[in-house]
């Protein structure tokens, strides 16, 4: 089963054709937390890998690598979005499904840019940051 509808796939392929550099999706698999009742029949790890491989099929600049419980990943499954295979500190924990496939594609597009899409004033503010900052954004597929 495709991860996107045909019209969505065409649009995603078009967007991903703009990638200026390679992007690696590192799929980290491992022991998963027991999900909410009703979700237990889903193999989150296998589905996450399927989504990542589905995106890689849309662009030759997107590649997928799988690791089992790599260091530094507190939760599984997880997808690290790595510009040119480098750890940029960007991850999606859990199964990117529904609306969140769009978020994953957005992350790949940003990773594939040589220059940030942020406004100059945002980049200036971030440049002044002199300590580590962890931003977590909780999402749902709907």
């Amino acid at each position, binding site marked *: 089963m495709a991860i996107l509808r045909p019209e969505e796939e065409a649009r995603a392929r078009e967007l991903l054709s703009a990638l200026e550099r390679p992007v690696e999706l590192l799929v980290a698999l491992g022991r*998963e*937390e*027991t*999900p*909410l009742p009703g*979700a237990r029949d889903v193999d*989150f790890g296998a589905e996450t890998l399927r989504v990542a491989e589905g995106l890689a099929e849309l662009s030759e600049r997107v590649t997928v690598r799988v690791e089992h419980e790599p260091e530094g990943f507190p*939760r599984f499954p997880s997808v690290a*979005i790595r*510009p040119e295979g480098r750890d*940029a*500190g*960007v*991850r*999606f*924990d*859990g*199964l*990117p*499904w529904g609306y*969140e496939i769009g*978020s994953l594609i*957005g*992350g790949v597009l*940003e*990773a594939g*840019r040589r220059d*940030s*899409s*942020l*406004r100059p*004033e*945002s*980049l200036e*503010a*971030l*440049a002044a*940051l*002199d*300590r*580590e*900052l*962890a*931003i*977590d*954004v*909780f*999402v*749902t*597929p709907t």
Partner: protein
Amino acid sequence: MKCAFASPHVRATAIEANAFPRLAEEMEVWAVPRIVVDGVPQWDGAAPEPVFVARVLGASFG
């Protein structure tokens, strides 16, 4: 995610709340998107880029 790609000091993680119910409960995720900075819940809902950047940096320095 854009902030993390733009700064080596920033890490950004999207967390699918249904897959991690214990963490979601701990972070009091009742609505999404729920923004958490350095492990401390901050606000719910999307924000324009200037507001988002100012808030996360404010939370960091605050």
